Every structure is written in C-alpha cells, then in structure tokens.
C-alpha cells in the first residue's frame, strides 16, 4: 500500500472453458426432472389408450399418432407444416419490427405515448378469434390475414416489455450520460436500447409461444393449407390421430422458436445472464 502501483488482489473470473463445460453439464442435470415427467405422462397415455378401452377417436395411442404422422407426412403434413411455419415466422418477425418501433416511439415522445398507449391496450381487448374471420373476408385465403393475426397476438408482450426495459435505466446513469456530453439520441442508442434488450427478449420468448396459436386461429378462419387447416378437416372425420400429430408439430414449432430466441439472447446479451445466477 506504499506506492501508487500497488493494488489490492483482483479477482479474475474463472477460466471460461471450464465454466462453460460445467454449465452444459448443469443444464443437462436441470433438464432431467422435466424429461422424467414427460416420460411418465407418455407411459400413462399409452396405458390408458391401450388397456382401458378408450376408443381411438377419443384418445389415440402415441404409437398410432406417430404412425399416422409418418404415413401422412409427405401427403399432407409436410406442406401444411411448411405453410404454417411461414406464417409463424413471418408473423413473428412482423410483430418484432412493429413492436420495437412502437416501443421506441412510445418511449421517446410523451405525446405519442398519450395518444397510442390506450389504443395499444384496447387492441388486446379485441378478441382475436373474432377478428380472424373478418380479416379473412378482407384479405381472402392469402397469407396476409394469418400474418396479421400472428402479429396481433405476438406484438403486445414485446411492446410492453421493451417499454419497461427502456424506462428501467437508472436515473443517475441518465444524468451521468448528460455530463458525458450524451444527447438524447446518444443516450437512447448507447444506454437505453442495450439496457432494454434483456426485457425485449423476455417479451420475445412469450411471443414465441403465442405465434403458432395465432397461425392456427388465422387458418381456422379461412385457409387452403396449413396445420390448422389439416386439423379443421380432420376433426369432423374423427381422425383424432392426425389432429394430435398436427398439435405435436405445432408444439414442437413453438418450442423451437422459443429456443431460437433464447439462443439469440445468450449471444446478444451475455452480460445480462450473470446477475441472474
């Protein structure tokens, strides 16, 4: 402590390679209980459908659903999955763009906030199941009404979370920015926008699970292909196994989208994960 050069012992962070490997092991360990529950549910499902005399049109067995899925994959399910995936992904992206632009506008101007925020909340009060047929009338059996329905369902959690994130910046930090010659734009770009990123991702994760629901609503209202279309055709025929196959594909899609968003979050804001451990 006698010279300026002397510093207290610093704590360098742990070797990154080792921590990454143990993190992978930890995430596998974390996933085990959930996998266990899934296995139990599947076993009960199989037992009920095979040995309790439940008819196939009520609860088809998992192996039957699998066989139906495989046999009708190339005929119907593949193209239906492709159509629905397009609707989900494009609708989701539309929601992201609109929501983030809206959030920045709402954050930056009090006038815009006062004018638009009530409408924003009102938009969520509109029952989308009811809106979807109207959109189908307006736009026909095209992809457009599906994109709008998906975007309508998805954009709200993104807007709200992004606005919260933008407003979450420490007021003292905003003052520091002013004394560091940061104007409004510099503060938005260098402080508020990056600070909002983790909460935007929270909104995106919620939206990712909503998106397939929106696509199915859109297809129910009027369509010529897609997983929702397949389901609405199969239900009157009591092809319950095909309905379940479509449901599983939709679920899988939602999970994939969720994982994609989470991976993107890890890549873009590695700093945000540290505090959460």
């Amino acid at each position: 402590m006698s010279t300026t050069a002397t510093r207290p012992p610093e704590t360098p962070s742990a070797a990154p390679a080792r921590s990454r490997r143990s993190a992978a092991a930890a995430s596998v360990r974390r996933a085990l209980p959930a996998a266990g529950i899934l296995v139990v549910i599947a076993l009960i499902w199989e037992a009920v459908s095979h040995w309790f005399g439940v008819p196939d049109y009520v609860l088809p067995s998992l192996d039957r659903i699998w066989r139906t899925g495989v046999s009708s994959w190339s005929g119907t399910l593949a193209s239906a999955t492709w159509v629905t995936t397009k609707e989900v992904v494009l609708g989701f992206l539309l929601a992201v763009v609109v929501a983030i632009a809206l959030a920045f506008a709402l954050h930056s101007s009090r006038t815009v906030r006062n004018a638009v925020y009530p409408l924003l909340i009102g938009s969520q009060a509109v029952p989308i199941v009811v809106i979807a047929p109207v959109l189908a009338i307006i736009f026909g059996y095209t992809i457009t009404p599906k994109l709008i329905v998906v975007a309508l369902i998805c954009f709200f959690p993104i807007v709200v979370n992004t606005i919260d994130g933008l407003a979450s910046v420490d007021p003292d930090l905003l003052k520091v920015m002013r004394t560091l010659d940061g104007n409004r734009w510099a503060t938005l770009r260098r402080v508020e926008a990056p600070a909002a990123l983790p909460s935007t991702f929270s909104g995106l994760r919620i939206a990712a699970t909503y998106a397939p629901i929106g696509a199915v609503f859109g297809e129910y209202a009027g369509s010529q292909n897609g997983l929702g279309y397949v389901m609405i055709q199969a239900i009157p025929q009591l092809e319950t196994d095909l309905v379940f196959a479509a449901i599983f594909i939709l679920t899988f899609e939602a999970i994939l989208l969720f994982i994609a968003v989470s991976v993107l979050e890890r890549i873009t804001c590695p700093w945000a994960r540290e505090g959460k451990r």
Partner: protein
Amino acid sequence: MAGTSGSPAGNGAAGGAQTDTGGATAAGLAGPAGTGLRLQGVTRVFGETVAVSGVDLDLALHGRLAIVGPSGCGKSTLLGLICGLDEPNEGTITVIDTETAAGRLRRCAWMPQRDLLLPWRDVLGNAALALENQGMGRKQARDRVAHLVERFGLAGFEDRLPYQLSGGMRQRVSFLRTLVAGKEVLLLDEPFGALDSITRADLQQWLRSALDAEPRTTVLVTHDVEEAILIGERVVVMSARPGRIVAQFQVDLPHTGSRRELIRHPEFTELRDEILSLLEAAA
C-alpha cells in the same frame, strides 16, 4: 460562521498561506490563475425542504475542495447544482467562465457513488463513452483511451466486462470514463463510498496521485473525514438541513507522503479531530 483555520505550518509544505485561492500552489507549482468555481448565495428548495441555503464558495482553477457533512446536508444536491443538472432557486453558480446550466454541463464531469458502468461494454468501451458521445468513431475512441488504461491499473483487463471486475477496478473504470470526457471540473460524489475499507484506502492514495499527475478543479463530497483531508486541499464542513457551510479548513500536509504516513501525521489527526467534533455538533 465560515471560520478559516489555517493549521500552523508543521513540517509540511508551506503552500496554503492564502486561503482564497485554495491550494492551487500546493503541488509546488504556480497554479494557473483564474476561477474554477464560484458559488454566491446558492439556495435550493424542494417543496418545503430547504436542501441548500446561502452557500458561498470559491475555488481556484485546479483547486481541490472536499465537502463533508452529515447525511442529508445537501452535499449531493450541491454537486447536481454545480454541474448544471439542476438550477438553484437563488444565487449564481459560475464554472470557469459560464453561469448557464448548459455551459456548466459542458464543463463539469460528475461521478456518483455507484460506478454505473454499462454492463454490455468492456473496460475500453465504457471508458470511451464520452468520446463517442462527442462524435468520435468507436474504434478511434477505444484507441484513444487504450494507452490510459495502464495508469489506471487496468492493463490486461481492457476486454473485460464490468461483472468480471472487482469493485475497486470498476470504480477506477468509472473514474477513467469521467476523466476521458476532458472536462475542466470534476465533481466526485462519495466515489469510494460503496467500497470496502482496504480498497477504499488504496483508491484514496491512487486518486491523490492521479490528481497530482493531471490536475483538475475537483470537488469531492464525502462523509469520510480522512478522505476529505487526504484528497482536498481545502475542507468545507456543512451542517444538516438546511445545508449551509459551517467552517472551512485549509489542509497543509506534506504533499508527497503516503496515505499511511499522512494519517499518522500529528497535523492530520488534529485536523481530523477538529472536523469530527464540528460534525458531531452539527448533526
């Protein structure tokens, strides 16, 4: 009220003979002439609460002033007023040559107690923030601060994110960021308040020499009397609400000694006891 108690010259540098120009000559150099800061009758009221009342202060260019006082005495309010984040209800504040809030904001850098680093920027990125705000390109700004990193004890940590640094290092990055802004006036609001006592002692010593190497007009707000005497060439004692100046002390201590030697110095202990007893009376 504002009694100035110049300590009798011990074996310290005979720098503090004049009270008005602060310790501008304390480093043994002829300090640059001119006003760093001038506060005249500054009062700030929040609703019913008088936060700061009738504060007069003068600080020469490159002078170092430390303000101590019980919590709630308006020390932080005073810094906010000086740097132009806030306007007084009464009185004028002159920073170098300007009285307007925008002008003061241009000339002052403010460093609060918490480091408030941007967690997504590494050490260089955080330090270069002001340069980027001033319009410099990202790469160029990083290059500009890169050579300063060593002097701040951060060499080898350029690419670390704030969460990978110790508290003391983060505070040094914060201080580097403040200095890089190139402001004439530094306003430090309990910069080491959140640190453990060992790190704090180390950084006090480090700040002393950093300011010797690169003199700036500095106002340090603290509730740590030792810190005030170590950093300040003049120490101002404020009373609790309404915050007003109770006394001013000139610090005449040898300028080269280490922190530990200084703290044992009889003049140091005498001054510390005097300020402490004043603070007790004021609280």
